[in-house]
């Protein structure tokens, strides 16, 4: 039982480390801000996720007490990571991307960062 747990924990740590490394490598290798944004999303999901699962197994098997902090960390990460990515993307688009470079919305109004519409027509605050 302990051996299986040890193997599992080590494997998870190595996999997580590899994905973390890959995320950083992608950040260096890719050549455009929008593309670069894809790399860190990997490091946070499988990279951090693997370490957290390994930590849970380790504490449960070897130190005999179950912790749930890892679940909370995962939850907080899942809430904050997309928002950060969205902020970075929006900031980049405002600085460097013209509206004509984007595909049209296909709807009545343009993209939120470029088009102003009155409060009355705005069902949700999209800014």
């Amino acid at each position, binding site marked *: 039982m302990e051996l299986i747990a040890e193997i599992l924990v080590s494997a998870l740590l190595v996999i997580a480390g590899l994905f973390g490394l890959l995320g950083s490598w992608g950040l260096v290798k890719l050549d455009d801000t929008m593309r670069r944004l894809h790399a860190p999303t990997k490091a946070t999901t499988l990279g951090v996720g693997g370490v957290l699962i390994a930590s849970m197994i380790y504490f449960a098997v070897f130190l005999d007490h179950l912790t749930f902090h890892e679940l909370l960390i995962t939850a907080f990460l899942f809430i904050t990571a997309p928002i950060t990515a969205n902020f970075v993307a929006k900031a980049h688009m405002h600085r460097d991307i013209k509206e004509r470079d984007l595909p049209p919305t296909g709807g009545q109004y343009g993209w939120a960062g470029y088009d102003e*519409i009155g409060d009355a027509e705005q069902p949700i605050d999209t800014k």
Partner: protein
Amino acid sequence: MLKAILNRIIPHPQLTGFLLLTWLLLVNSISTGNVLLGLIIGLLIPGITQPFWPDRPKIARPLKAVEYVLLVLWDICVANVTVARIILFKSNANTHSHWIVVPLEVRSPEAITILAGTITMTPGTVTSMLAADASHLLVHCLHTDDPDAVRDEIKHRYERRLKEIFE
């Protein structure tokens, strides 16, 4: 009358339960004191923040929500490997990035937020912007040869389920 009073004290019953659960996970022990403290937090925070949050999201089918979470977790694992392969084995010139426009059918802000978050968390796609009238979502895709297929998958796999959960 009783309902109105109860509504006053507990404006968001689910949020109260959720905060209590979060607090217990945070302190990592279940004792009377901690449950009481968690309840106090769970009652205070919804009470204070209620003016900012007048409509509470309705979750029509909680079981579907659980299924959705599991599905997204699985997709994250699969997509991680896909993107890892793109980063490792494809040159920059060979990577075909695309903007994808996803027309939205879901209307509630919560559903759109969760959909946008899901798209970002499944690697390979990042949500970039929402149309000014919240009718379309602008998504950046790292590598695809068929942008329409990606759009259809997002709509079919995630949006359809979210629609079932929230409406």
